[in-house]
Each structure stands twice: as structure tokens, then as C-alpha cells.
């Protein structure tokens, strides 16, 4: 099953997003990761790589990110990782929920999960 990693500058935000998406995503593995590793805001490539490792059961991982350096550190984490992992260019909460639901499908692939995460960019709320 495709796994998910949620990267935020705030560990609390990452945990919360994983929690919301987990409600919809059944068995989908969702690993939240965030903060600078010293109790402050930020993102750390090594921590993201560890999360990718934890989320991967062999079918690959889609990484959802919030802002700025989260993208750079996720890119580096993916380059360091042995897992097949891609970043979804999506709003982090809505994208994670879409991805979690899609990942439960029996034919889900890294590409189909990423595609559905990115489809969340077009979601209108009003």
C-alpha cells in the first residue's frame, strides 16, 4: 500500500493533519514529521527521510509538504532515500486527505495517489 508522509514546519500541525486524514484513510500509513528537531519550527531532511522509510512498505510513498524549506528538505530526503517517493504539489491538509483515501484503493500507485493529492488544488470551498 502506498504510504504518506506529512511535512510541516510544526510537528503539531503535521500530527493534526495526519490525524484528520487518518479518519478518512483507513489502513493507509501516514507518518507526520515537523519541527527543527530542537523544539522549534522548521524542517529537517534526515527526519523526513526516516519518516519516508517508516511509511514505505515497498509500494512507495507520497510526500505532502507545507511551505518554503519543507520542499527543499523533502527533495533531499527523497534523494537520500531508497524508497520510491514523490512530492505532491498540493495543499497539505486537503491533499493529504485525498491521498489517504486514494491510497486505500487496491490499484493505487504512487502516481495515482499523487495525482489525487494534486487534484485537491482545485477544490472550492464556497
Amino acid at each position, binding site marked *: 500500500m502506498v504510504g504518506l508522509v506529512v511535512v510541516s514546519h510544526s510537528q503539531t500541525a503535521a500530527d493534526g493533519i495526519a490525524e484528520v486524514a487518518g479518519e478518512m484513510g483507513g489502513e493507509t500509513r501516514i507518518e507526520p514529521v515537523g519541527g*527543527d*528537531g*530542537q523544539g*522549534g519550527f*522548521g*524542517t*529537517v*531532511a*534526515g527526519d523526513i527521510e526516516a519518516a519516508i522509510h517508516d511509511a514505505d512498505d515497498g509500494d512507495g510513498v507520497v510526500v505532502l509538504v507545507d511551505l*518554503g*524549506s519543507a520542499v*527543499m*528538505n523533502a*527533495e*533531499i530526503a527523497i534523494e537520500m532515500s531508497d524508497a520510491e517517493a514523490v512530492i505532491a504539489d498540493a495543499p497539505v491538509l486537503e491533499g493529504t486527505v485525498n491521498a489517504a483515501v486514494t491510497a486505500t484503493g487496491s490499484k493505487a500507485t504512487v502516481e495515482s495517489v499523487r495525482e489525487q493529492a494534486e487534484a485537491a488544488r482545485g477544490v472550492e470551498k464556497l
Partner: protein
Amino acid sequence: MSDEGAAAVAAVGAVAERIEAERSHLTDLDSAIGDADHGGNMARGWAAAAEAVEDLEDPEPAAVVKTAGKTLLSEVGGASGPLFGGSLVFASTELEEGITAETAVAFAETYLEKVQDRGDARVGDKTMIDALVPAVHTFKKSVEVDDMTPVEALAKAVAAAERGVDFTVPIRASKGRASYLGWRSVGHQDPGATSTLYIMEELLDVATDNVDAPDELPDHAESPTIPDGEVTED
């Protein structure tokens, strides 16, 4: 330990000391146009890097640079971690055959390419690229066209980086957090370009100390062929 490896370890230590000494200055620069964490983050990262390279059993240049980069990646955080640390990790492979004029140029070019790929910034965006691009281009040209030694070329590159840092003051930021300030970023020196210059100055210092002085200075030592202010070739 090889001489080159020892020099590489010394260079990381020198950078760590310099960044620590400039910590509050870098933080002041960053508080004007960023989130005031550049000095603290960089000082923490380089201090950890200096410690990590001291612990290497066989410190060849490529291993030293790679270890420093990995440590920066995990300790610096923010955008500076991937930009400074990640780029060092990737560029370190260029030094696997040791440090020569040729491998130094390849290292500098790969480092610049990685920073540009990752940060997606161009000259004039008011970022470290404004120091790095003229420095790397000047280094390459000094070695390949003007036939300077790597240390002479590095001195030219440091001067070019210095002009690049000055160039960040009057311009408006279009990348990173400073870009949110728009015109209010004008008049402030970019912290990432500044720390890039400090790193290069320390590299030059260590390189100068570790190269045997030539018996006779070559004729081109004072070569004026590097045009001032030329920052781009692409």
C-alpha cells in the same frame, strides 16, 4: 591523515569559528529581512560539522566535505540546511580524486548548480546566489583562462563574492522570506550572501596557509583580466 584531508578539516574548523564570531551580525542582517535565525542556525550547524569532521578516521577531502554537509543538513534547519549542506554533500564527490585546480573548479560548479536547482534563485534575487555566481565564474575563468593557481583564483573569487554581497544591498528581494517585504528589503544586505562570503574567506585563509609558497610569483599573479562586475555568463 593526508595533508589535503588535514587542510579540509582545518577549513571546516575555521569556518565554524568565523560563523560563531559573526553569529550576531548574521542574525542582525536576517532580522532586517528574514526571521532572525540565520546566525544561530549556521553557528550551531558549523560547530557540529567541525566536531563531526574531527571524529573522521580517514579524513580525505571528499569525506570531510560530505560529512560537513550531512551535519549541516541535519543541524541547520530552514532553507540554509539544504542549500549549504545538501549542496556540499552532492559536490563532495568531485573531490574524490583529491584537490587539484580541475577538481576544485568541478566542485565549485556542482555546488553552485545544486544551490541554483534547489533554491531556484537567479542573480539579482537578493540571495546567496548573488555572491556565489560571480565567485564561481571568476574562479573558473581564473583557473582555466588566466592559468592562475587555485589559491590565486580563490583570492579573485573572494573579491568577486565581496562585490556580490555589496550588490545585494540596493536591490529588492524576489526569493525567500525577504521577498514578502517587497521594496522594504531594499537597503539591507543579504545574510545568505554574507555567510557565503565568510565561508569563502576562511577557505582562502586555510588554502593559503596550506600551499607551499612558489619560489617565484608567476607573471599573471596581478593579471587584471577579470572584468569587474561581470556576474553572469548564462
